[in-house]
C-alpha cells in the first residue's frame, strides 16, 4: 500500500452528497455511499455521518466532463472518478457519464468505486497489490466484496486499529500481524510440534487460517493453534478426504482443495455442488498430484507448484495457463523445490512451507526476505506455538 502523506486529525467525519447521479434513486445512493464508508470504519475507529447541509469534511458529487477542478471527466469508460487527499479537502467526484449501478454486473458498481475513492479521501494512494481495493483499475462487479489485507494495513497505518466492535463484513480479522516478529505466547505440545510438516495451509473466506495435516486440521491464531484443535477434516468439511495436496480460497469466496487427480470446491464448510471433479477438467493446464497452490497478492492470479516447476492460472484468460508455463521455481529467488504448502497470509506476506521450515517471500523484491533470524525458520516455533523448539535454523545468536 501507499500513503499519500496527509490524514484527517479527527476520526468523526461528516459527508454530504451535493449532486446526485441522474440514473439512480437518491435513497439507493445514500445507502451505497454509507456502505462504502463502512468499508473503512469497519477496521478503524473512523465514523462517517451524513449531513444534508452546511460544511462537511467530504463532499460528494456526480458530475460530467469539466466540473471546476481542472480535471475533466472523459465520458463512458476511461476515468470513472477521482478524489482529493485530506490535505486537498477530501472531496470525491464521480463521472456521471458512467452507468452507475447497484448490485449488478452491468455498468459500473457504485459501491466499489466509492469505497476506493473514499480511500483517497482518507489519505491512501494507489496500491500495487492487484487484489487491493486501492489498486487503480476497476475489476468489474464483485458480488462478494472483501477488503484486502493490504487495504486494512494501509488504513490502520493512518488511523489505528478498531478498538470497539468487530469487523462484520467478512473481511480479514482485525489482528493481522503473523508471527513475523512476535514470539509464541501459548506453548503447545502435540502432534504438529513433533512433526511440523503440513499438507497445506489456506485462508478461509472469513479470514481464518487453517493448516491441514493427514486427516486432521488446525485453526491458527496469531501466534499459535486455537484451543480445541486438531479436529478431523471430515468433521469440518463434510465429504473432503484427508491427505490434501493443496488448497486456496479464491476471491469469489470459495475454497478449492486438491488431491491426486481431483479437486473439491466448498462454499464455507458446504460442498459447492457435485464434487470431486478432475483437475484436468476444472483447471486446464494444471498437473495432477500438486505440491501447493495459492492466490498471489501480487497480481491476484492462482499459482500452482509441483516439484521444481510452477504454473500461473488466470481464470479470466483463454487459455488460463500461458504456453510459457511451467517455469522453474528457481524464478522465485530463495525458494526450494518440492514445497509442501504456500499461503498468502493476512499481513500481506507470502509464505512457503517445506518440511519443518517456512520461508517468507517479499513480493516487492521478489525474493525470500533477508531477516534475522534468517529464513527458513522452524514452523513449529513461529506458526504453531510449540515450546522447547528452536526459533531459528541458522547459527546466529538470536
Amino acid at each position, binding site marked *: 500500500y501507499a500513503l499519500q502523506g496527509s490524514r484527517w486529525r479527527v476520526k468523526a467525519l461528516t459527508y454530504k452528497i451535493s449532486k446526485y447521479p441522474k440514473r439512480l434513486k437518491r435513497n439507493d445512493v445514500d445507502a451505497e455511499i454509507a456502505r462504502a464508508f463502512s468499508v473503512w470504519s469497519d477496521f478503524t475507529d473512523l465514523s462517517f455521518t451524513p449531513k444534508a447541509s452546511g460544511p462537511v469534511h467530504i463532499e460528494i458529487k456526480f458530475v460530467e466532463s469539466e466540473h471546476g477542478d481542472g*480535471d475533466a471527466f472523459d*465520458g463512458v469508460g476511461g476515468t470513472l*472518478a*477521482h478524489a482529493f487527499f485530506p490535505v*486537498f479537502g477530501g472531496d470525491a467526484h464521480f463521472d456521471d457519464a458512467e452507468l452507475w449501478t447497484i448490485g449488478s454486473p452491468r455498468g459500473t458498481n457504485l459501491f466499489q468505486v466509492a469505497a476506493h475513492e473514499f480511500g*483517497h479521501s482518507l489519505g491512501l494512494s*494507489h496500491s*500495487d497489490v492487484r487484489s487491493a481495493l486501492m489498486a487503480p483499475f476497476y475489476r468489474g462487479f464483485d458480488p462478494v466484496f472483501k477488503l484486502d489485507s493490504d487495504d486494512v494495513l494501509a488504513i490502520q497505518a493512518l488511523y489505528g486499529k478498531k478498538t470497539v466492535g468487530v469487523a462484520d463484513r467478512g473481511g480479514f480479522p482485525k489482528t493481522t500481524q503473523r508471527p513475523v516478529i512476535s514470539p509464541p505466547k501459548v506453548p503447545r505440545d502435540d502432534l504438529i510440534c513433533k512433526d511440523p510438516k503440513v499438507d497445506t495451509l489456506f485462508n478461509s473466506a472469513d479470514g481464518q487460517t487453517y493448516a491441514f495435516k493427514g486427516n486432521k486440521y488446525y485453526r491458527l491464531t496469531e501466534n499459535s493453534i486455537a484451543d480445541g484443535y486438531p479436529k478431523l477434516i471430515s468433521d469440518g468439511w463434510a465429504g473432503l478426504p484427508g491427505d490434501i495436496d493443496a488448497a486456496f480460497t479464491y476471491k469469489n469466496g470459495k475454497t478449492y482443495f486438491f488431491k491426486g487427480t481431483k479437486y473439491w470446491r466448498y462454499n464455507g464448510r458446504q460442498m459447492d455442488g457435485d464434487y470431486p471433479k478432475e483437475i484436468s477438467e476444472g483447471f486446464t493446464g494444471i498437473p495432477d498430484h500438486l505440491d501447493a497452490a495459492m492466490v498471489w497478492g501480487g497480481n491476484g492470479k492462482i499459482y500452482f507448484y509441483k516439484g521444481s516447476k510452477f504454473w500461473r492460472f488466470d481464470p479470466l484468460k483463454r487459455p488460463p495457463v500461458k504456453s510459457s508455463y511451467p517455469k522453474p521455481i528457481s524464478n522465485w529467488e530463495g525458494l526450494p523445490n518440492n514445497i509442501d504448502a504456500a499461503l498468502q497470509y493476512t499481513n500481506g506476506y507470502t509464505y512457503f512451507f517445506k518440511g519443518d521450515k517456512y520461508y517468507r517471500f517479499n513480493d516487492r523484491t521478489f525474493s525470500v526476505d533477508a531477516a534475522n533470524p534468517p529464513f527458513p525458520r522452524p514452523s513449529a516455533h513461529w506458526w504453531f506455538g510449540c515450546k522447547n523448539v528452536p526459533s531459528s535454523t541458522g547459527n546466529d545468536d538470536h
Partner: protein
Amino acid sequence: IVSPNPVQTTTQAEIYLSQFGYLPASARNPANGGLLDATTWTKAVQDFQSFAGLNVTGDLDGETLELMSLPRCGVRDKVGFGTDSRSKR
C-alpha cells in the same frame, strides 16, 4: 470489462502514462525536436508494468495496452512529477 476507449497507439499510451504520473510533463525534450528520450519512455513503461503486476519488459505489449484500457480511478499512481498538487477550488 469492455473498454469503450481502448489504448491502442503509442500516442494514447504516452497520454496515459503522463496522466497517471509515469511520465513527467517535461519528458519531451525541446532541444531534440520535442522527442521523447527512449530511455525515459522505456522506464515509464517499465514503471507502469511493475506497478500493475505485469511482466516488466519495457515494451508496449498487448497485455500492457489491455491493462491501460481498463476503466480506472483518475488519481495518479505515482506522485512527485511536476504539478501534482491538484488543489481544490
